[in-house]
């Protein structure tokens, strides 16, 4: 740790080191893909869960709430066993690929999106039920309206999901294998540099990861401000 890690971080970024760019690009691609998948499934699922009543609904809600605390390494292990050549989905040859990492992170994000969407949509439904009913909109038909109305609260949930996925190392290490140039992400690179005793580089990479997260959150905040804060 001869030099200041923060100086190292900025030197790294300024140097445009192609390996670093590749790692940053992969990390973003994996996490944003996982967020996208988590939202495509989680937003409708959460809304439907908020607006429908069926036996066992309480159990499903509790399950998704509990899964928000799923240890990433367990999520990784499950995906590993699923995708391993000896596992049920072995023929897809997905283990040690970015796709495997997207699946693992998607599993971590999904419960956050589902639970938050359910909570937001439930509240909105209570508020707008009469109005929507008077327009003759059914519960299911009102899902897009309610999701749009709650977009700003939902964005917070999506950012929480992004944070959980981008900060996580246990799952992507197991299912990605930290292969140089192929599945090495910011977090697995940080783990590797730490294990090399190269703490300065590890902190530098951590600083860069933090900057990426800050930038994205700043952008998200900017969007909510710009859109007039019309929702909640």
């Amino acid at each position, binding site marked *: *740790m001869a030099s200041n890690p923060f100086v190292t971080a900025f030197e790294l970024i300024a140097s445009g080191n192609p390996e670093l760019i590749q790692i940053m690009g992969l990390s973003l*691609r*994996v996490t944003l*893909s996982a967020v*996208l*998948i988590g939202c*495509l499934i989680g937003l409708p699922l959460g809304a439907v869960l908020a607006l429908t009543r069926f036996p066992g609904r309480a159990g499903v809600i509790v399950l998704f709430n509990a899964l928000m605390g799923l240890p990433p390494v367990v999520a990784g292990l499950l995906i590993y066993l699923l995708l*391993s*050549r*000896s*596992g049920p*989905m*072995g023929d*897809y*040859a*997905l*283990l*040690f*690929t*970015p*796709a*495997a990492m*997207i*699946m693992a992170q*998607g599993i971590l994000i999904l419960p956050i999106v589902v639970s938050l969407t359910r909570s937001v949509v439930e509240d909105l439904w209570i508020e707008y039920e009469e109005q929507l009913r008077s327009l003759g909109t059914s519960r299911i038909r009102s899902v897009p309206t309610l999701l749009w109305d709650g977009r700003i609260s939902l964005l917070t949930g999506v950012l929480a999901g992004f944070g959980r996925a981008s900060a996580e190392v246990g799952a992507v290490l197991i299912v990605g*294998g*930290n*292969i*140089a140039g*192929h599945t090495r992400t910011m977090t697995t690179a940080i783990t*590797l540099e*730490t*294990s*090399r*005793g*190269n*703490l300065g580089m590890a902190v530098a990479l951590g600083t860069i990861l933090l900057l990426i997260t800050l930038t994205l959150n700043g952008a998200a905040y900017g969007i909510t401000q710009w859109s007039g804060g019309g929702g909640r």
Partner: protein
Amino acid sequence: MNSARSLLVGLALGLASLPAKAQEFITVASTTSTENSGLFGHILPIFQEETGIAVRVVAQGTGQALETARRGDADVVLVHARAAEEQFVAEGHGVERFDVMYNDFVVVGPSDDPAGLGLAETATAAFAAIAKAGSPFASRGDDSGTHIAEQALWETAGVKPAGNDWYLETGSGMGATLNTAAQVPAYALADRGTWLSFENRGDLEIVFEGDPVLFNPYGVMLVNPERHSHVKVDAGQKFIDWLISDEGQVAIERFTINGDQLFFASAKQ
């Protein structure tokens, strides 16, 4: 459910494969000592240049690497625990084991050497001295090649270290264990490659080395295609053949850190 699953896979694949790579590659399960020391970073570009085959290295402990190969998740496995490797081949998981190279283990510890390892004649005596003094010892505790070698040394020394309060099982890789040893400070058994490339040494230094029992041989095996039909036999065998060829062996010998050679060629020609 099934269609939902295919959809998910398709989506994940579609997103993951944006920059499509059609390049031929093999997956090699290997150890942290080869990857973290930078050996692969040195030799793989030479191999790829020559054959056009990219090598994707998954660096794990020897036990985990063999398990990865056993499950069919790698084409080639390169590790360092001869008995475990021979068992791997005997059980039909690997085709044949080839000697590739060796390095050696060193015992590192606090520079004031509280257990007096500097006076020990043999590695066994050094380990006995640690136990006798009750000095902290950081063990990998992860079934890696280094951990297996360490356990053999305790056994020869007639010591049962587990359960003693001076015996710290980190359950993690070589680097993480060295980070722990540097903080305690504690003794630890390390492969020379990881030690030479390790930067956070603190007060640690080599306190014992040179006993022939600390010899650390690496073997390479192709995963048995009869067990796992998807194993890339041709490309995998090409990699093994190259490793044990004159050219591969020279590439291994030429890898140095600050002028120190880390691995010594040992393929039988």
